[in-house]
């Protein structure tokens, strides 16, 4: 059974269901309780679970991220919301040095079952300091799992998996997707596997790999390529960025022999760069064309509407990249 729900509702339901199941799960962050969430993702949680489990924090990212990690060491399962991931840079030492590395540094004794979640990447017209994709930043680090949902099914199934996972998870949402409705499975047992990509659309001529909101451009470009050029495009939704589902990408490439990656982050040392490296190591002989990356432009995000549009990936940019790798 499926039903139409927004990504926002899917995230909220995932948290509420896991909180009902496990009393050690709690949510903390700025405006998560009484304000009902800066983007209303935690709507209703305070009413159901009370102030001890839905905790409004002061504006103190490094402090509450570290506090969450400490609580995680002691066996609680914190969900730490960043109002946006841009503010997680204030807390990145706690995420990496404290949450990600301690299991290793303790010889396996001190795990930290924590989820850091919130909107990542560009929203709309909020300028350079509020428009950045952190996918490659966090995916770089051993000891973390990194996920990025696209639709409501992803949001619910991946967030539940993240909350149940005994390891620290960085969960990158997208503000512009919160209000979008998608079909999603009903029931509180729907969990997706971590580290498995989803083939959103099967195709035979070229593979496009993406995650989060830029998957929109990949799917639209696939329609255009089919209609205008008769090219059959396979579209892969990564879902998890670390560990990366290299196998699914390689299997697709063996079929299509052409690959385009699409992401909102900067090109330098990005997720696309990593995928290219993986393909070099695991599937070089299957390539019929160089892999193309579609990324955010290599600039701080401009405010002006026309420049902002230019700085972001788009359906047109994806179509152009697909044409290049298909030599059409």
């Amino acid at each position: 059974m499926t039903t139409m729900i927004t990504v926002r509702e899917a995230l909220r339901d995932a948290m509420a269901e896991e909180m009902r199941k496990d009393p050690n799960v709690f949510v903390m962050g700025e405006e998560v309780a009484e304000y009902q969430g800066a983007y209303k993702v935690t709507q209703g949680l305070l009413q159901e679970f009370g102030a001890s489990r839905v905790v409004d924090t002061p504006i103190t990212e490094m402090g509450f991220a570290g506090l969450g990690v400490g609580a995680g060491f002691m066996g609680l399962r914190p969900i730490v919301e960043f109002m946006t991931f841009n503010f997680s840079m204030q807390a990145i030492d706690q995420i990496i040095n404290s949450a990600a590395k301690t299991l290793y540094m303790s010889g396996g004794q001190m795990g930290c079952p924590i989820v850091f979640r919130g909107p990542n990447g560009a929203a709309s017209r909020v300028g350079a300091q509020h428009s950045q994709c952190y996918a490659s930043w966090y995916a770089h680090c051993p000891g973390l799992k990194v996920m990025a949902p696209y639709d409501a099914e992803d949001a619910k199934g991946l967030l539940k998996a993240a909350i149940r996972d005994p390891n620290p998870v960085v969960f990158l949402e997208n503000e512009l997707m919160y209000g979008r409705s998608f079909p999603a499975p009903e029931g509180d047992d729907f969990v997706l596997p971590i580290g498995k990509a989803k083939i959103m659309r099967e195709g035979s001529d070229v593979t496009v790999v993406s995650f989060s909101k830029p998957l929109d451009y990949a799917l639209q470009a696939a329609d255009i390529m089919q209609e205008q050029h008769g090219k059959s495009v396979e579209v892969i939704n990564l879902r998890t960025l670390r560990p990366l589902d290299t196998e699914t990408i390689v299997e697709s490439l063996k079929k299509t022999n052409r690959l385009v990656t699409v992401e909102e982050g900067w090109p330098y040392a990005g997720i696309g760069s990593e995928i290219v490296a993986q393909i070099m190591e695991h599937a070089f002989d299957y390539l019929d064309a160089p892999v193309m990356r579609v990324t955010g432009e290599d600039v701080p995000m401009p405010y002006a509407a026309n420049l902002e549009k230019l700085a972001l990936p788009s359906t047109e940019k994806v179509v152009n990249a697909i044409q290049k790798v298909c030599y059409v």
Partner: protein
Amino acid sequence: MTQFASKISKVDALKFYEDMLLIRRFEERSAQLYGMGLIGGFCHLYIGQEAVVVGIQSVLKPEDAVITAYRDHGHMLACGMNPKGVMAELTGRIGGFSKGKGGSMHMFSREKNFYGGHGIVGAQVPLGAGLAFALKYKESDGISVTYMGDGAAHQGQVYESFNMASLWKLPALFIIENNQYAMGTSVARSSSVPDLYVRGQGFGIPSKQVDGMDILKVRDAAAEAVAHIRSGKGPYLLEIKTYRYRGHSMSDPGNYRTKDEVESFKNTRDPIQNFLDVMKKEFNVSDAEVEAIENRVKDVMKEVVDFSKESPEPDVSELYTDILIGE
């Protein structure tokens, strides 16, 4: 003697003395092993500060959680962690508390409620507040004890933690071990105010300064602080004035202070020597009893050093273990 100290028995006194002496001898042997090349990297010795951790730990219960920074060997011994496992970690061996993968600054013991051992100055303070948050959330009677140095007391996240701990009345004891030098920078050159304990007052946290060269004064202050915290009134801050005899780490020549200053602390303020005098006077401790303790510590340290040399290096397969649970 004050009301709390007067409650200690001769048995307690002998134990405090032995605990402090073990830390000192452990650190002296660490320095030797470092000099022999058996310990690598950073190694921060606790010599001179022994009365702080032994005094604080003497009023704690097993359910209390402890966390500190990287000058941590003494804290682990005072928490009851086996010194063999601590020294074997310093030598990077499989018998170490982190299987040799953490080193001097990164050791943990779930069994003893010791949560590290953290290498980033000040980062242990939000973590310690989180331990207190979890204890309160679980409705435990335990408290968390977070140690930091005078250098850490200038990190912003310390004050983020003070604010939340006080706001939420977390059962947290914060301890600034003021050994007067953050690496080579004295408190006078790094702090806008001479006393660090006042930094708690701005957050509504009861805060006191204590003489950290006197274990009984430390214990008294700790007992008062812990009673306050256990009664549900929220956090407490102690600034404990102490002194490290050795450099910041093994590579520090210590040119920022005079030999006279160091010698004066060693000769007149030494926490172990001074407590020995108190024990002899208050409890009629005999030379034979003292000698018995010294011999016991000596024997323990011989075993510890032997173990730290004999325990093998971690198997190469350990390189890729303990990165994620369940993989």
